[in-house]
């Protein structure tokens, strides 16, 4: 219900037919849920967070060199078990992360879930609507601060040009899980049309100075996940494939063509006593077919390792090392700079980030975090906040603080 109201208020993002359809579907059910009989089948939850960012150089999440509080997230969701097999759920998300798009309120997900098989040892079902994409360990709840491994996700591995593609999309999906004697195996896959906005387009086009259009965008995202029963370890293999046609604007020095982006991520987590080790490694290949006359391929890699120590149920500290490269055969970015006619600095092609953080969770509801970054490279700096490449400082530092509440 709430999501319908918000979608009509929301003027930043044009509502899509699928959403209208789901609103119409959800409405009668939600009204029924308000009756005493249906009440216990209905639940709602939410989250809220506010961050503060200060950087030595470069702008991240607002005018951060002067200190920025332009980092807020809020969400409200509802889930309703309409019948034994049908679940309806939706979430409205408000997000402000500096100048980065999408800004404001939008429908994060709106799902019709049909559980085809539901046993204690195995289950499978189909989903339709705006779905959260299963990618890596953290993508599905990436806007809920308490579920992240720090104040922000590892930026190079997660907050990349394909953010929206690996986040949520209007799609159909399949999910399944199976209990084995030693653990649980699950598999999910979504296919559909990703939510592309100007910022995503700019990123997908790798900062290409063009007013051209992307058409016929489609994506396939899937994940295999195995989780050992007692939580000692879990591992996942995720893959996302995105493609779109590109049409340059009149008079531009580019040709019509196709963009193909494929990425694969391997995720691993190991827990022992109070220690947790997490590692995710991603490969991403972007093909620009025909756009520059010749075919151009970037073979990027990104990875991080994080060690967390849970000092108590409330306190934890962590250290993380993350590296990301636009092209693994050009780690120092020299070829990249030359290719751009030296309009882009070499350090736009990589970012190496060392993070130290502390987290305090006095209850399930509250999370307070403080994080310090030392960064070499500017690969994941948002272009919208740092439009002039000449100002990109190679070595910079960042301090982040965040308070988050959820229910």
């Amino acid at each position: 219900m709430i999501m319908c109201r918000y979608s009509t208020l929301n003027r930043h993002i044009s509502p899509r037919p699928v959403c209208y359809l789901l609103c119409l579907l959800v409405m009668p059910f939600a009204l029924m849920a308000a009756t005493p009989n249906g009440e216990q089948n209905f639940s709602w939850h939410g989250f809220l967070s506010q961050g503060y960012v200060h950087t030595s150089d470069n702008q991240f999440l607002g005018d951060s060199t002067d200190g920025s509080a332009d980092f807020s997230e809020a969400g409200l969701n509802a889930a309703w078990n309409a019948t034994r097999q049908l679940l309806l759920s939706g979430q409205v998300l408000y997000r402000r992360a500096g100048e980065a798009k999408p800004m404001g309120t939008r429908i994060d997900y709106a799902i019709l879930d049909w559980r085809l098989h539901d046993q204690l040892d195995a289950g499978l079902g189909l989903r339709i609507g705006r779905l959260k994409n299963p990618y890596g360990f953290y993508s599905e709840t990436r806007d809920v601060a308490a579920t992240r491994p720090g104040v922000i996700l590892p930026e190079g591995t997660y907050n990349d040009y394909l953010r929206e593609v690996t986040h949520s999309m209007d799609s159909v999906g399949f999910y399944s899980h199976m209990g084995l004697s030693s653990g649980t195996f699950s598999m999910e896959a979504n296919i559909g049309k990703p939510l592309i906005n100007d910022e995503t387009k700019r990123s997908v086009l790798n900062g290409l100075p063009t007013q051209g259009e992307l058409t016929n965008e489609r994506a396939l995202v899937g994940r295999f996940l195995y989780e050992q029963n007692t939580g000692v370890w879990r591992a996942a293999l995720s893959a996302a494939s995105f493609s779109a046609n590109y049409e340059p604007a009149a008079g531009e020095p580019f040709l019509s063509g196709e963009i193909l982006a494929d990425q694969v991520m391997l995720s691993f987590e190991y827990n022992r006593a109070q220690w947790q080790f997490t590692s995710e490694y991603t490969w991403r290949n972007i093909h620009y077919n025909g756009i520059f006359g010749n075919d151009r391929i970037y073979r990027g890699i990104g990875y991080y390792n994080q060690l967390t120590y849970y000092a108590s149920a409330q306190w934890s500290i962590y250290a993380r090392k993350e590296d990301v490269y636009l092209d693994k055969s050009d780690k120092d970015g020299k070829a990249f700079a030359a290719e751009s006619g030296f309009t882009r600095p070499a350090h736009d092609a990589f970012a190496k980030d060392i993070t130290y953080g502390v987290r305090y969770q006095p209850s399930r509801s509250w999370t307070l975090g403080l994080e310090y970054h030392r960064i070499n490279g500017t690969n994941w700096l948002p272009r919208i906040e740092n439009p002039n490449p000449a100002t990109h400082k190679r070595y910079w530092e960042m301090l982040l603080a965040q308070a988050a509440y959820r229910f």
Partner: protein
Amino acid sequence: MLRRLLHHTLLLTLFSTCFLQSAGVCSEESAAPKVIVNPQVNTVQLNVNQLRAIFSLRVRNWANGQPIRVVVLDAKHPGSLPFVREILNMLPHQLHRQWDRVIYSGLGQGPTIVPDEQAMLRHIANTPGAIGFISGATEYDNVQVLDIE
């Protein structure tokens, strides 16, 4: 007098034995937490993996078609950790992560969180399909205790 002394000594010995032995006669009184369900739930026995699937919110309905309602104690309650560690044999953050995924990516209903064991017993007794837990020493009524393999 001597009798009294003997009595005291015996008590003291018993007490210290119980205090020192973790798996002694006395600790049986505060035995492992019990898994409880609403009496209408037909299931009488579950294995640990099935119990994990239920508390991780992966299953929606009991075999008889009744919706499963997971009830848990607030994480701060002293009865919460023994259940997660000894019965489910899971890590608390592992369990919470499963709930978060369900609640914040639209996969289903989160668990009902109750502040104490009295509220737990009331909730289980009054809610068809409810499943929860109490510590081994807690007296109970109007709920059914599940046999865990």
